[in-house]
């Protein structure tokens, strides 16, 4: 096979889409041809770059909830009402959510707008009152995804991530890889909350990312009840663990996030005993 032929078929080879005979011919060509090898490596590097979990956009959980409701209500409503409902649907709240109360509005408009806002709030806002800390953690989670600062240390190896924090923090966060359980460790990052340095661990669950924020508890007694909340479509669970406060933030569904928290707590309890 010539370089030109290999070049034509290289991506089919990379994607495992060629028949065996053709693939073997390419494999025969590659060891003798640095140029084709380099081309293959470059294509592999591009593929790895795109497949990186920070590139994927998982569905926001608010959208998921909204659709679940929409699908369920669809079964009992005749079509005419459905289409009417669709037209009347308020614009997604995030479009004007920011300071809606500051927008200049005519009074009748304000009343209508309030109705829309109240209707939408039920969908978008958590049942708990938002608190400064939760907001800050969600901000931090979002920033870590958007602002190209997911990891300071990117590794699936807990023995790389844990020592990385040494000297950067005045405590040593618990770091365990849960690959076997379906929550692989992805890396670690130094973060800030209220001006104090805290540890952030990043875990993956399929296409979702989980940030675990950890700092030493001031005087929180261990074993406090876990606290679950949602904020801007993200699920958050707080738990205390051997003198550390841990907050997990993710767009992962609440059940799987809880599963992760249970894993984390069990592992932590086991490691401090031994």
């Amino acid at each position: 096979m010539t370089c030109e032929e290999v070049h034509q078929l290289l991506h089919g080879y990379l994607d495992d889409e060629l028949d065996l005979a053709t693939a073997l011919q390419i494999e025969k060509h590659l060891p003798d041809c640095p140029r084709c090898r380099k081309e293959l490596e470059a294509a592999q590097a591009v593929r790895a770059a795109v497949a990186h979990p920070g590139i994927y956009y998982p569905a926001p959980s608010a959208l998921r909830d909204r659709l679940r409701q929409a699908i369920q209500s669809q079964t009992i409503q005749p079509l005419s009402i459905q289409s009417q409902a669709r037209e009347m649907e308020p614009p997604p709240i995030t479009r004007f959510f920011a300071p809606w109360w500051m927008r200049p509005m005519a009074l009748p408009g304000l009343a209508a707008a309030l109705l829309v806002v109240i209707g939408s709030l039920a969908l978008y806002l958590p049942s708990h009152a938002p608190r400064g800390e939760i907001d800050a953690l969600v901000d931090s989670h979002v920033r870590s995804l958007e602002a190209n600062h997911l990891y300071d240390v990117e590794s699936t190896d807990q023995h790389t991530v844990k020592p990385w924090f040494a000297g950067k923090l005045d405590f040593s966060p618990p770091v365990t890889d849960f690959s076997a359980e379906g929550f692989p460790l992805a890396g670690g990052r130094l973060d800030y909350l209220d001006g104090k340095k805290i540890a952030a661990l990043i875990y993956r669950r399929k296409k979702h990312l989980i940030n675990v924020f950890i700092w030493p508890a001031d005087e929180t007694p261990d074993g406090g009840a876990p606290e679950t909340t949602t904020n801007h479509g993200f699920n958050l669970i707080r738990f205390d663990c051997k003198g550390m406060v841990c907050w997990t933030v993710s767009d992962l569904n609440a059940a799987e996030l809880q599963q992760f928290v249970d894993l984390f707590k069990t592992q932590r309890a086991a490691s401090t005993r031994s």
Partner: protein
Amino acid sequence: MSLPATTSKFESAVLEHMDAAYNLARWLTRNDQDAQDVVQEACMKALRAFDSFRGGDFRAWFLAIVRNTSFTLLRRGKDSPEGAGRQSLEAGAEVAAEPDVYDPQAIAIRSADALCVRRAIDALPEALRETIVLREMEGLSYKEIGKIVQVPIGTVMSRLARGRAHLQKLLVEMDSSRQEGTP
């Protein structure tokens, strides 16, 4: 009217592929709100058409609806919808040029920077972008992609080759421009 059993089957199928649907719509519309609107609209369309869906690959069927809905939204408000479609394909042809050098290392360095990678993908012409997303992020086979995009398998392969070549060029250029920028 759908039976409740059908609906719950539909619901679980849709929710299972919600990430794939949103991700595709997000990359096609390049905007969160539009992507959410697209997924919502596509869901309702799919629910209405679910009776006519006779088994087979639900994901491919659903993603095809998401794709079409995205294009409807993108073309809405454009002067000439057909012209816009043609333009993006022609733009795809323009970037078919091969990279001058293959530099896996430079790409690897750049790929640590998620924002750069996203920007590079955003810069791809639509036809190449959707093929890359379906292949690299959803892991679909050429055959499945061909079905969704409605092109022959050979075209899927050549679009992937062009898309990757274009991305490589962009990533390497970003890499060198950064190096020049930092003294």
